[in-house]
């Protein structure tokens, strides 16, 4: 192969990989004949290496597989909530009652979402509980505080929403600010609704990002904890379990996505006007809101699939 082509192909690999294998790989490629098959092989393997090196050793450990499942679960939850609130109390719900195929799609979406959340809960709750026990057994307040960030953050967000509903008779959710529907007279002014809605979104974003960082820190602290006098051991789940959970979340997310995609097309064919009605997230149209959900579900499915594939390179470790 020509040196320029070799250089371009090697540039597709992640930096860490290039530093370790770049020189010898380029030496070998220089001796190779140019074939489409070889180029395709290098491109696919380089992309795979990039996926596997996302983050810090993303695919090396079971905990990374779990992180991806959690990400998939959060994306599925966000997509499901978006679909639900786009349809809830809207003409789309009426259209669903009139068309059994649309209702069937909705059922598929609901079943997929429930299965996905169940898979996520079964995968993560025992680990979360084991981490709490580890923190308690070791009297590690720093780990405990990080573990409780997520529940506290979401409790606060819930408290905020309930508090606003109690005071204003309006839920500060991004689907309920404005749209192609009449706002009840007892709701706050539109400007106030927008402001309260942004506070909710900020709280949710703070909760999600903060929880991800806190859990990641807690995992790192558990790994670096002294192991000699430990009263409680911590065991990551087995490889097989992680692969099973990832597979369940992947299948469930694909089902939800298929239901959403078919449902969206059917809804558009039954009532084209509804697709352009502002029924979605922060006053977007129903079709945009629907597409955002499908995008989130596709991302979740990809994360679950990568988690499933790469759990194969994980190891079961015991931290004492």
């Amino acid at each position, binding site marked *: 192969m020509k040196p320029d082509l070799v250089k371009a192909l090697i540039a597709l690999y992640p930096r860490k*990989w290039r530093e*370790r*294998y770049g*020189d*010898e*790989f380029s*030496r*070998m*490629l220089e*001796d*190779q004949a140019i074939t489409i*098959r*070889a180029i*395709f*092989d*290098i*491109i*696919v*393997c*380089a992309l*795979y*290496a990039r996926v596997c090196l996302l983050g810090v050793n993303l695919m090396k450990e079971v905990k990374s597989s779990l992180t991806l499942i959690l990400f998939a679960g959060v994306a599925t939850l966000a997509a499901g909530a978006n679909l639900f609130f786009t349809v809830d109390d809207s003409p789309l719900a009426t259209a669903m009652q009139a068309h059994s195929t649309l209702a069937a799609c909705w059922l598929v979406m609901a079943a997929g979402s429930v299965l996905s959340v169940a898979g996520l809960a079964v995968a993560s709750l025992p680990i979360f509980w084991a981490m709490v026990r580890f923190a308690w057994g070791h009297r590690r307040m720093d780990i405990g505080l990080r573990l409780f960030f997520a529940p506290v953050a979401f409790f606060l967000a819930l408290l905020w929403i309930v508090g606003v509903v109690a005071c204003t008779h309006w839920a500060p959710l991004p689907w309920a600010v404005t749209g192609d529907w009449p706002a009840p007279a007892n709701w706050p002014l539109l400007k106030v609704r927008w402001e309260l809605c942004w506070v909710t979104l900020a709280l949710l974003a703070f909760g999600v990002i903060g929880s991800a960082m806190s859990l990641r820190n807690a995992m790192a602290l558990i*790994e670096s904890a002294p*192991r000699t006098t430990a009263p409680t051991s911590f065991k990551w789940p087995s*490889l097989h379990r992680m692969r099973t959970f990832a597979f369940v979340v992947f299948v469930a997310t694909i089902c939800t996505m298929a239901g959403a995609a078919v449902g969206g097309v059917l809804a558009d064919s039954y009532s084209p006007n509804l697709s352009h009605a502002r029924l979605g997230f922060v006053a977007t149209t129903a079709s945009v809101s629907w597409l955002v959900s499908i995008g989130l579900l596709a991302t979740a499915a990809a994360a679950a699939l990568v988690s499933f594939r790469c759990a*194969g*390179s994980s*190891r*079961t*470790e*015991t*931290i*004492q």
Partner: protein
Amino acid sequence: MTRSSEKGKTSESEMALGRFSDPTLLVLASLADGPKHGHAMIADIAQMSGTRLGPGTLYGAIARLEEQCLIEPLPPEERRYPYRLTPDGKRVLRAKLNTLRQFTMAGLNKLEAA
């Protein structure tokens, strides 16, 4: 972070055998008779199995095997890095080939009995 025992380590390696895709096994088998660099491995594997590994696939397998400490690089010769099996690599390759032999024998016996 500890592996509980030597027994635990063995069972982990045996578990790992189940997820070996062909390229990693082919690389291990190619190195069974001595160290080789990438180009020689491709030629050897092609001769041994009729499978011509792509360069990306080969180095993907090399990276995985090196990460699992089943192969190790030797000092370079004109920018070519030969690799050789580690003791763990030899043990894993032997175990895998024995499993394959048992599987082959069982399959052939069933065919003959039918």
